[in-house]
C-alpha cells in the first residue's frame, strides 16, 4: 500500500494548487467587478484632492493597470511571499492576517472542540432515548438552530446576555481604553465567551443530528444484533462497538465542517465586533480592499481544504477497511 503514497501526495498537492488558483481568480474577478471604488474608499467621499493626486494614488496602488496585469502582478508577488498592502489597514496584508487569525483561530478551535464534544454526547444521548421526550427536545433544538441565521442568533444572544443581563461586554476582544499591559487573560476570556457561545451553538446542530442518526442506524445493524446474541451486555455493546463505530464518522464530519465553521466565525465576529479575520473580511469588502480580501480568500480556502484533507487521512488511518484494504480516498 505504501507504493501509493507519493502518487497520493502529488495528487493532493495538485488539487490544492488548482483550488487556490480557482479561488484567487474568482475572488479577484468578484472584487474588481464589485461596485466599490477602492480609490474612493481610500481617500474618502468628501475628499478635496485634485484629479492628478487621485491618479497618482491609483498608480501607487496599481489600480490603473488592466485586470490581467493586476492579477499577474499579484501572483508574482505572492510567489515571493508578498501578499501586498492592505488599503484598509495601511499595513502589509500578511501582518494583518497574521494578527487577525490568531484571534479567529482561538475562537474557531474552541467552538470546534466544544460543539464536537457536546454535539456528539447529545447525539448519543438522544439516539439511545429515541422517540422519548429528551430526544424530541434535542432534535427540535437542533433543527431550530440549523434553520436560524447565525447573524440573527448572534444578535439575540448579544441583546440578551449583554444588553439585558449586562453579563458580558458588547463586543471587541479586550476592554476599550485599557492599556495593553493592563489587559489580563480574564479580560480576554470575558470577551471571548459570547462569540464562542454563538459559534458553538451554531455548529452543534449538525454533529448532534448526525451522531443521533448514526447511532440509531448502528443499533439496528446486524452486527449489534449478533453481538447481543453472543451475550454482550449493554455496557459491552457501547464500549466495544457503538462508540468506535459512531466516533469515527463524527470526527470525520467535524473536520469536513471547516467551511461552515469559517462562515459562522465571520458572522459571529461581525456581530460581536471581535477583531478576527471575519471582521477584517467585512471591512475589506466594504473598502474594496482587493489584496486583503484575496489574502483572506486564500487562507480560508487552505483552511477548509486542510480540514477535508485531515478528514480523509483520518479515515484512512482509523478505518481498517481503508488502512489495510488499500488506498486512501
Amino acid at each position, binding site marked *: 500500500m505504501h507504493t501509493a503514497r507519493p502518487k497520493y501526495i502529488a495528487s493532493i498537492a495538485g488539487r490544492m494548487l488548482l483550488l487556490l488558483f480557482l479561488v484567487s481568480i474568482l475572488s479577484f474577478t468578484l472584487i474588481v467587478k464589485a461596485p466599490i471604488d477602492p480609490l474612493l474608499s481610500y481617500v474618502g467621499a468628501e475628499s478635496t484632492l485634485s484629479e492628478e493626486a487621485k491618479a497618482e494614488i491609483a498608480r501607487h496602488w496599481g489600480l490603473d493597470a488592466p485586470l490581467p496585469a493586476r492579477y499577474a502582478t499579484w501572483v508574482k508577488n505572492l510567489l515571493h511571499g508578498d501578499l501586498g498592502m492592505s488599503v484598509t489597514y495601511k499595513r502589509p496584508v500578511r501582518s494583518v492576517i497574521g494578527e487577525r487569525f490568531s484571534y479567529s483561530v482561538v475562537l474557531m478551535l474552541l467552538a470546534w472542540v466544544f460543539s464536537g464534544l457536546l454535539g456528539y454526547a447529545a447525539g448519543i444521548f438522544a439516539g439511545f432515548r429515541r422517540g422519548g421526550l429528551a430526544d424530541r427536545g434535542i432534535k427540535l433544538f437542533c433543527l431550530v438552530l440549523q434553520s436560524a441565521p447565525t447573524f440573527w442568533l448572534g444578535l439575540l444572544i448579544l441583546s440578551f446576555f449583554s444588553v439585558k443581563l449586562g453579563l458580558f461586554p458588547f463586543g471587541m476582544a479586550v476592554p476599550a481604553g485599557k492599556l495593553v499591559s493592563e489587559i489580563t487573560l480574564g479580560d480576554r476570556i470575558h470577551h471571548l465567551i459570547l462569540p464562542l457561545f454563538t459559534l458553538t451553538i451554531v455548529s452543534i446542530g449538525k454533529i448532534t443530528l448526525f451522531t443521533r442518526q448514526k447511532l440509531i442506524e448502528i443499533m439496528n445493524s*446486524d*452486527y449489534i444484533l449478533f453481538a447481543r446474541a453472543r451475550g454482550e451486555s449493554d455496557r459491552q455493546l457501547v464500549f466495544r462497538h457503538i462508540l468506535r463505530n459512531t466516533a469515527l464518522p463524527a470526527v470525520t464530519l467535524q473536520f469536513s465542517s471547516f467551511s461552515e465553521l469559517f462562515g459562522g466565525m465571520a458572522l459571529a465576529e461581525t456581530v460581536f465586533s471581535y477583531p478576527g479575520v471575519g471582521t477584517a473580511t467585512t471591512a475589506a469588502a466594504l473598502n474594496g480592499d482587493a489584496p486583503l480580501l484575496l489574502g483572506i480568500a486564500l487562507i480560508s480556502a487552505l483552511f477548509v481544504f486542510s480540514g477535508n484533507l485531515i478528514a480523509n487521512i483520518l479515515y484512512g488511518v482509523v478505518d481498517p477497511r481503508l488502512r489495510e484494504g488499500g488506498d486512501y480516498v
Partner: protein
Amino acid sequence: MTSKDTPVLAVRELQISFSMYRKGLRKESLRVIRSLSLDVRKGEIVAVVGSSGAGKSLLAHAVLGILPSNAVTEGEILYKGETLTPALQRKYRGTEIALIPQSVDYLDPLMRVGKQAACAGGGPEAQRAARAAFARYGLEPRVERLFPFQLSGGMARRVLIVTAVVARPALIIADEPTPGLGAEAATETLRHFRQLADGGAAVLLITHDIDLALHVADRIAVFYAGTTAEIAPAEDFKRGRDALRHPYSKAFLDALPQNAFKPIAGAQPYAGRPPQACLFADRCPERTNACAGAVAMRALRGGEVRCIHAT
C-alpha cells in the same frame, strides 16, 4: 428434573405480535407468529424451512431474547426443561445458546475477528477458548488479527461458526447459514453442523433450502404464515410428496426446481388473521367446509401436522 428425554429446546404455543402505529396514531397489534410448537433434542438437527416471511428468523430471535422492543411474546420457551425468562436468556446467550449468522455483515466491521469471537466472558479465559476454537476449525492464529472485510469466503464461514461455538453451547441456532454459497461450500458448512450435533449439541437450522436440509437434518419443520404446518422426519421428505402429511409441504416439495417446479398459486397471508382456522385454506386444493373450524397440531405417522384432512 432434566431427564435424558427432556428436549434441549421446547417451544410451546409461541405467539409473537408487534405493536405498531398505523395511519395516524392508532396503535395496532400485529400477530406474526401463532401457536408455534417445536422441540429440538440433544444430538439432533431440526431444520426449519418455509418461504420468506414465514417467521423463521423471529423464532430464532425469540429463543435468544433479541426481538425488537415492540414485540410481545406469549406461550413458553423451555431450555432443558426450564422456562426461558429474559434474565435466563441474558445469562445463556453466547454461552449455552448460540446463534450462527448468515454473513460477515453480522460482525463489527471495525473490530478484529479474534476479539469478537472472544467476547463471551471477555477475559483471558475467553481468549484462550477462542484460540482453541479457531484451531479446531483449521484457522491459523493470524486470522484472529484480521478484520471481517479481510476474510475470504471460506474463512468467513468458519469464523462465523467459531464465534458461535467458542463456549461449546448446548443449543445452536443457525439462521440461513448457506445462501450465496456454492454447493460445495454449503455442503461443508452443513457438515460442520452435523459434527456439532454428533458432538452432543442440539441444532436448529433455519433455511430456505430444503434440498440441503434433507441431507443433514433429522427432522424438518415446515413453517407457513407464522405457524408450523408439519413436522416430519427428514426421511419422509426424501421419499417424496406422498410420504408427507400437509398439503402445503407437498406443494412446497412440488415447487422445487428439481421436482415439478410447480409454483403454489396465491400468496402467504400476512399477519392479522383469525388465529384458529387453517391459514393455508385460501390456497389449499383439499379444503372443505370443516377447515374453517379450529385446526390444531396433531400427531400422525411419526410426525405432526396441522391439517384436519391429512392422512
